[in-house]
C-alpha cells in the first residue's frame, strides 16, 4: 500500500493553519491567557509583602498560586486538545469541505492521521507557550524549577494526545458539543477516582481504571518540584512505561476512530 505522506502532511498543515484562524480557539485562548496574566497580580503582591517574619507563609501562598496556574494550564490544555480534535473533523463534515478533499486520492485513515497530526502541532505550540508562562510565573514568584525540560514537554503532549484521540473517536459518532460533555465528565471522574479511590468499591474501581485513561500518571506536575527540595530520582524504565501507556491508549482510541470513520457517511444525509 502506497501511503501518501505528502497528503497527510498537507492535511496536518492545513488543519494547524485553520486552528490559528479559528475564532473560538483564539477567543478562549486569549481569555485563558488573560486569566493567567491576572493571576500574576496576587503573585507580585505576595512577593512585595514578604518580609523575614512572614517569609514561610508567603512562600506557601506563592507556591499554591503557581500550582493553581499549572493545574489550570493542564486542564485547559486537555479541553483544548479535545475541542480541537472534535472540531477539526466535525467542522469539515458540517461545512461540506470534506467532500472535495476526500474526492482526492486520499484514504480515510490518511485524512484522520493528518487531522490528528494537526491537533498535535497545535498542542505542541500550546505546551511550549505554557511552559514559558509557568517559568515566568515561577521566576516572578522567586521560585526555581527542578525538573527535566523534556518531561515538562513530553508528558503533557502525550496526555493531550490521549484526550485528542478520545475526542476524535467520539466525534465520529456524536456532535462535538456532546463530545465535550463526555470529555468533561470523564475528566471529572478521573479526578474524583484519583482523590477518593479508597472509598470507591473495587467492582466499580476496576472497570473505571480499565476504560478511562489514567492521566494522573501522565501529569508533569509529578516531576515539577518548585521548592528548594531536591528532585526525587525517577528511573528511565518508569518514564518509558508511563509514556508507552499513554501512547498506547492514544493509539487505540485513534485506531478505533479510524475504524468508525471508515464506515460512516461523509455526506450530510
Amino acid at each position, binding site marked *: 500500500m502506497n501511503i*501518501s505522506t*505528502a*497528503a497527510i502532511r*498537507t*492535511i496536518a498543515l*492545513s488543519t494547524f493553519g*485553520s486552528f490559528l*484562524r479559528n475564532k473560538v480557539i483564539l477567543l478562549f485562548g486569549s481569555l485563558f491567557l488573560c486569566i493567567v496574566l491576572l493571576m500574576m497580580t496576587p503573585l507580585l503582591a505576595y512577593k512585595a509583602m514578604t518580609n523575614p517574619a512572614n517569609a514561610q507563609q508567603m512562600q506557601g501562598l506563592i507556591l499554591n498560586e503557581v500550582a493553581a496556574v499549572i493545574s489550570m494550564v493542564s486542564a485547559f490544555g486537555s479541553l483544548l486538545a479535545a475541542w480541537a480534535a472534535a472540531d477539526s473533523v466535525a467542522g469539515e463534515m458540517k*461545512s*461540506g*469541505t470534506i*467532500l*472535495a*478533499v*476526500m*474526492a*482526492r*486520492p*486520499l*484514504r*480515510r485513515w490518511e485524512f484522520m492521521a493528518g487531522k490528528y497530526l494537526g491537533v498535535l502541532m497545535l498542542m505542541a505550540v500550546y505546551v511550549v507557550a505554557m511552559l514559558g508562562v509557568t517559568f515566568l510565573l515561577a521566576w516572578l514568584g522567586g521560585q526555581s524549577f527542578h525538573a527535566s525540560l523534556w518531561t515538562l514537554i513530553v508528558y503533557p503532549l502525550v496526555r493531550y494526545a490521549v484526550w485528542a484521540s478520545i475526542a476524535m473517536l467520539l466525534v465520529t459518532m456524536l456532535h462535538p458539543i456532546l463530545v465535550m460533555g463526555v470529555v468533561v465528565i470523564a475528566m471529572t471522574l478521573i479526578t474524583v477516582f484519583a482523590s477518593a479511590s479508597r472509598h470507591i468499591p473495587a467492582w466499580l474501581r476496576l472497570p473505571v481504571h480499565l476504560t478511562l485513561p489514567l492521566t494522573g500518571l501522565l501529569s508533569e506536575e509529578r516531576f515539577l518540584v518548585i521548592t528548594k527540595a531536591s528532585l526525587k530520582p525517577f528511573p528511565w524504565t518508569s518514564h518509558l512505561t508511563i509514556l508507552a501507556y499513554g501512547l498506547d491508549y492514544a493509539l487505540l482510541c485513534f485506531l478505533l476512530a479510524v475504524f468508525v470513520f471508515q*464506515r460512516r*457517511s*461523509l*455526506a450530510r*444525509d
Partner: protein
Amino acid sequence: MAKPAIEFAGINKVYQRRFGGVQVAALSNISFEVARGEVCAFLGPNGAGKTTSMNILMGFIYASSGRSCVLGYEPGDVRAKERIGFLPENFAFYRYLNAEKLLQFHLRLSGRQLADPAALIASLLAKVKLDTYKGLKIGKYSRGMVQRLGIAQALLGDPELLVLDEPTSGLDPAGRKEVRDLILALKAEGKTIFLSSHILSEVEQICDRVIIIDRGHMVRAGTMQEMLAEDNRVEIIVDQLPEALEQAVKEQGASLEREAHRVRIAVDVAHKRALAEMLWASGCDVVSLTPMKSSLEDTFLKLVAEGGAP
C-alpha cells in the same frame, strides 16, 4: 471491449434514522452504465436520489446493497480517485484561503507531480475567468465565482472522469455558456463526464446519454436521440387550410394550429401519408413534413409525470 467508466448494478440505499428506527429508501435497484468518453446526464426531480448516487460513486457513503465500480475499481479506491475530478453540489471551501492557495492545497492532495504547478493553476484560473480575482479571499466570492472555482479544482488532476453535481448552478447565462463550452471541449479531449443538472436545454446540447431517476427508482436510460425520438408524430405545415377541410383533418386524429400565414398539423406517423395526400388533393400547398421531436424537457416531464417510479 473496454470496461465502462461507471457501473451501478442493483444499488440500494436505505437510510436508517438513529433513533426511532425509521427506514428511508433513498435508492432502489438502480442499475446503469456510463461508457468511457461519453457525456452522460443524470436527471431527476429534487430528492430523486442523484446526489446520493454520486456520493456512493465517490465512496462518501456506502450502498446498502448492490455492486458499483468506477474506472474498474471500488468507489473510494485511491487508484480510481487519482483519475476522477469531482465537483460537489454546493462546493464548499476554506473561506480564509484565496483561489490560488486553495488550488495549491488540492494540487498537493492530488499527488500530481508537475515541473511548474503555478503555471497549471494560472491556466485553470484563466480558464474559469478567475485570474483577476486569484488574490481575493474565497469568503468574498459570489456564488457563481465559487462554482467556477469548484470547476477549476475538479480539473486539477487532469482527470479521465469528471463527476459534476449541478455544474451550472449559481451561474449567470454567460457563465453557463462558458461551462457548456468547457464541457464540450473536455468531451472533445475524450474525457468521460457524468453530470447532474436541472437545466435540461443545456443537457440536450452537450450530453450523449441520459439517465432519469425519480424517488430513488430508475425511470429511463438511453441515448439522447432515443430520448428525443419519443414523439411518434409528424408535423405537416400547409400554406392554408379551408375550414371545410378541418373536420376531415381532425377525423385522421390530427391536431392543428393556425398561424398568420400557415397552418401546423400534427398527426400520428401512421396517418401521415393519407393526410398528406388528402391535403395535396384538396389544393393545399404542403410546405414541409417533418418528424416531430419533443424536447428533453417534454420527455423528462412526461416520464416523471407518468410515474416511472412506483
